[in-house]
């Protein structure tokens, strides 16, 4: 039976593939008809997102459904835009459900500046950001750590670098998990992983990572915008990066480790990248403790970068650091224990989010007090030339997707196709005409990350909002974009 024939429509923005073959639960997609058509057309390709989502549905202990958000596209093992929750007793933990960039995420900083305050100063600010913020392959950070200090980073996350003077204690309140996950164990992280990171704390990386200066150009929800401290015309900064080489090496080290465990526990996986271990097995617990350490590294990394953004604003415009506050930070490559309601029962589940963002609704105790009544800020990064969004989590999202939403526009074109179609110089010129200044360390990251290489972010956000999983708060337009 063709994939198209397998799909059942639940409503205009939700489709389902009922369990078949070794699938234990359905595969559910928060997409519209057009996106579904594209996905089914791509299902003849060897590496396609629908097949990957169906594969996730075969994993032991998976609850309710293997789900994909509107920005779904192929990954490795799991599709990007995927979420899967597992029963702690029967379920598994998987490398592919987190990815190699452990706890990759977005920090949003709000400023007391407005668009007019930057007029005529954009170039100066862009140049200073380019000098101050290390980015691109081969770059190193100003913070050089010893292996002992790296262990502190892995245990304490953002808290450790705040102690070193990077940023302020009030930043921590507005980071998911306050920037430090418990259960992190540096002793299960290899020396190679730690040594690779000695000079990489406070570096941006390359690929789709960026720092963007943006202006609020639409406010949709006055109450939530007030809670988030957002106004029309206000300048905000978004930064997107992860756990750098340390996270990559944890993934690399644990891939063969979990490959062995998969065989040991007799788990059948349809794709070798889906290697996993029972959550409560020694192997599963060890990988979990390593991932928590990797996640803390990402928290620390973004904290140092937030400090560098403040430094750039001070150097270029003499804006004091107190004028730049953390609005929120939330990650999209994670695995965490969370309490969710399943079949009217509150249960502790292990939730994998691969290229999808936690999007908790109002009232959740995990949220900072200031945002608890309106729901969690959900940060959706666009591309260099298009809008980004600040959304909020909803009660429906809690029930339907384990409090999860989209994380970005989602890629539409391969890197090679984008490189051919979008010469870097032309992209920079065209964006300049649109009022966006781009600074990049490698030309490849401009071509490969060109706006045309991605889906239409406005449309993808519409789908998730129409499905009721998230609600719009504000739209942001880019002014300056710094790439690796």
């Amino acid at each position, binding site marked *: 039976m063709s994939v198209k024939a397998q799909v059942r429509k639940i409503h205009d923005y939700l489709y389902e593939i009922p369990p078949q073959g070794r699938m234990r639960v359905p595969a559910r997609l928060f997409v519209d008809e057009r996106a579904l058509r594209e996905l089914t057309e*791509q299902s003849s390709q*060897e*590496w396609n*997102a629908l097949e990957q989502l169906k594969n996730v549905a075969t994993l032991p202990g998976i609850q309710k459904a293997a789900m994909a958000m509107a920005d779904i*596209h*192929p*990954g*490795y*093992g799991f599709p*990007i835009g995927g979420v899967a929750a597992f029963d702690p007793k029967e379920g598994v933990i998987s490398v*592919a459900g987190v*990815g*190699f*960039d452990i706890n990759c995420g977005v920090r949003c900083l709000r400023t007391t500046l407005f668009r007019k305050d930057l007029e005529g100063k954009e170039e100066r600010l862009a140049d200073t950001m380019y000098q101050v913020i290390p980015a*691109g*392959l*081969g*770059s*190193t950070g100003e913070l050089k750590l010893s292996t002992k200090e790296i262990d502190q980073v892995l245990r304490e996350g953002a808290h450790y670098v705040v102690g070193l003077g990077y940023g302020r204690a009030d930043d921590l309140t507005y980071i998911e998990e306050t920037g430090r996950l418990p259960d992190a164990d540096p002793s299960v992280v290899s020396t*190679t992983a730690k*040594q*690779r990171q000695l*000079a*990489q704390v406070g570096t941006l*990386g*390359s*690929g789709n990572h960026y720092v963007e200066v943006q202006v609020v150009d639409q406010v949709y929800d006055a109450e939530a915008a007030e809670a988030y401290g957002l106004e029309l015309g206000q300048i905000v900064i978004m930064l997107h990066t992860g756990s750098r*080489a340390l996270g*990559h*090496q944890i*993934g*690399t080290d644990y*891939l*063969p480790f979990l*490959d*062995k465990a998969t065989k040991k526990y007799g788990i059948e996986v349809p*794709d*070798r*990248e889906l*290697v996993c271990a029972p959550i409560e097995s020694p192997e599963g617990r060890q990988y979990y403790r390593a991932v928590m350490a990797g996640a803390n590294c990402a928290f620390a990394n973004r904290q140092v970068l937030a400090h560098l953004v403040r430094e750039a604003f001070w150097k270029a415009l003499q804006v004091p650091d107190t004028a730049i506050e953390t609005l929120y930070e939330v990650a999209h490559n994670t695995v965490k224990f969370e309490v969710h309601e399943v079949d009217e029962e509150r249960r502790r589940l292990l939730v994998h989010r691969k290229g999808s963002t936690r999007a908790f609704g109002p009232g959740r105790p995990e949220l900072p007090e200031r945002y608890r009544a309106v729901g969690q800020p959900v940060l959706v990064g666009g591309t260099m030339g298009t809008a980004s969004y600040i959304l909020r989590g909803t009660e429906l999202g809690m029930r339907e997707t384990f409090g999860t939403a989209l994380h970005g526009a989602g*890629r*539409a*074109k*391969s*890197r*090679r*196709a984008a490189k051919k179609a979008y010469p870097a110089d032309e992209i920079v010129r065209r964006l300049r005409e649109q009022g966006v200044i781009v600074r990049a*360390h*490698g030309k*490849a*990251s401009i071509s*490969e990350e060109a706006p045309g290489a991605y889906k239409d972010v406005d449309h993808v956000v519409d789908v998730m909002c129409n499905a009721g999983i998230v609600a719009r708060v504000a739209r942001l337009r880019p002014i300056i974009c710094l790439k*690796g």
Partner: protein
Amino acid sequence: MPYEYLEHQADIGLEATGATVEEALRDGVTGLLNLLVDVETVEPREEVTVQASAEDAGALFVSLLNAVLATIDLRGMFFREFRITRAEQVNGRWIAEGVLAGEPIDLSRHAVEIEVKAATYGGFLAEQTDRGWRFRCILDI
């Protein structure tokens, strides 16, 4: 073509073929090096040994690519060439060794392309045919 980049919507597939395991591994690493940086801008002034081991030949391919990525960070160097010196099965375990030639990273001279986070088991393929070996995996970008 000894190595080939394969279309993937978000990442990049890498396939390497060779008459022997050694050749296929060598060409896979060469493909990886060419993705990271314009190798013409890197001088082969220093040599560094790299090693990898795995349970099977396909996992060895992934493991060797990851060992090369780690070496770049650990040494702070970019590499232009790779020479394989050993690839064999010892007591049921596959082992590879080779020599990378390059120089310390100098961002004023080296034309960087894109960072590869890791070689994954995604798109995994390892097969021995009449003509030799073929390895394949998805690189996380």
